């Protein structure tokens, strides 16, 4: 029975079995969920298919969000790149535009994969799909990266939190960024230790990020924060792959993220009572909910 409770145990398993993080996570799933590798891979292919469609559809066909605060951003960034004007280069530009696109799909009631949450669902696809295009990788080549990402996300769910209401945006986009960083490192040939180093860096750099959705909607600043989650993941992966070591192990970084989250004032934990949500422009853009006892849809 393969299982691990933290990053240290995961790395030990990788070393003992000479396997990457993705293989350990897949074996754990087969053992504990009493399922087969074939079934797990089929489900993961479906995840990838939904990620791709949610990241690409809005670039061709932009749609306004339910709350009316966003829509069309992904296409603009994509056109900027196509016009040869990208400041960041094609890899980062694509990562940004896919991350924007997934959040646009999400906020317009399109189909997405929560990764680990709906509000942070653009980071992992943003990073992996941009790497796929940049390096001409097949869909099958991306699957190990997704298994790797899920190992990091599992540790965050198990030992900390991925809920903005509990830990702020650092727990959502921060964890998504750590997942994407680790996945990118494995995808580009890095070691398990480098994977968790990059995950730790990604989390470190977003430590303390609050959750302050304008109008309580998953639109602004969520969509933009996904772009920073993706850019941060690529940076963290670059550092690890270059051989830059991380002082603080991933397990300790998760612990501190969790404790910072719990000490965050409630205003900054998905209540829309602080940060961007209470700026004058944020308030003005707010949609008001329904008033008490009002019958909205009379039969």
């Amino acid at each position, binding site marked *: 029975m393969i299982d691990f409770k933290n990053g240290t145990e995961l790395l030990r398993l990788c070393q003992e079995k000479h396997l990457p993080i993705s293989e350990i996570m897949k074996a754990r799933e087969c053992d504990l969920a009493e399922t087969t590798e074939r079934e797990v891979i089929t489900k993961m292919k479906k995840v990838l298919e939904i990620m791709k469609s949610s990241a690409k559809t809005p670039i061709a066909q932009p749609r306004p969000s*339910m709350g009316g605060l966003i829509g069309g951003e992904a296409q603009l960034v994509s056109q900027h790149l196509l016009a040869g004007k990208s400041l960041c280069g094609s890899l980062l530009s694509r990562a940004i535009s896919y991350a924007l696109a997934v959040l646009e799909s999400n906020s317009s*009631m399109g189909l997405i994969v929560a990764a680990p949450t709906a509000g942070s669902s653009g980071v992992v696809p943003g990073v992996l799909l941009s790497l796929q295009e940049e390096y001409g990788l097949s869909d099958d080549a991306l699957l190990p990266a997704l298994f790797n990402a899920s190992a990091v996300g599992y540790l965050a769910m198990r030992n900390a939190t991925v809920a903005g209401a509990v830990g702020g945006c650092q727990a959502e986009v921060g964890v998504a960024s750590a997942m994407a960083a680790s996945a990118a490192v494995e995808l580009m040939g890095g070691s398990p230790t480098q994977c968790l180093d990059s995950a730790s860096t990604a989390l470190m750099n977003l430590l303390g990020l609050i959750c302050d959705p304008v109008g309580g909607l998953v639109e602004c600043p969520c969509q933009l924060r996904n772009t920073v989650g993706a850019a941060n993941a690529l940076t963290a992966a670059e550092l690890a792959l270059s051989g830059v070591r991380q002082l603080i192990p991933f397990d300790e970084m998760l612990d501190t993220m969790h404790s910072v989250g719990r000490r965050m004032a409630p205003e900054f934990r998905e209540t829309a009572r602080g940060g961007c949500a209470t700026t004058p422009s944020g308030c003005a853009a707010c949609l008001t*909910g329904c*008033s*008490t006892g009002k019958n909205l849809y009379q039969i």
Partner: protein
Amino acid sequence: MAFISIFDVLGPNMVGPSSSHTAGACSIALLAHKILDEPAREVNFTLYGSFAQTYKGHGTDRALLAGIMGCDTDDTRIPHAYEMAKAQDLKWQFLCDETETELHPNTVDIHLTGISGKIIDLRGESIGGGKIRIVRINGIEVDFSGEDNTLIVVHRDRVGMAAHITSCLSQRNVNIAYMKLFRENKGDRAYSILEFDNDVPEDIKDKILEKEDVERVVLIRVREGRHD
């Protein structure tokens, strides 16, 4: 600690924008649909807390209505729930109660009438990440998630009822993961709620119904048996 699957991390596959306000809402309504066990004729929703305040921008209304019509969280018909309901001649009503503050912030009451006139009253909470809990059925406090195969037996509170249910299950070699009993008052109507981590045969319902004092049996199946 409950098992966390790869697809709890990379998942649920869902129609956005919010796992709690959209996917969770849909799951609660879908459970109500499964418990009703027939097409619905009319549905009234009462939204509380954060559901009441932000339901529109999160599509909570459409997700709830779609769930009542049998849609799961990844059903791309969710955005078109109103059109679907009109086409099916399903009547709906949404009410918001922002005065009630004691409840979980994402709570909904569903009053559902089936085509035969059968009525289900249910209260659900969306507790985060798409996870839900049903906390009340027809006025009785209960607690289950519907994440696993679940059997709900409505019966009189009588001696031997638990023994009857468990013996029916053991005869069919079904292992019980959890079993909880909820009742109005001693001797009154009671709910036995059982959860399983394996498949449960459909005909178990008739077997359990054979005993006097069993009023209704609902089997909610979410996973098939293992396929290797």
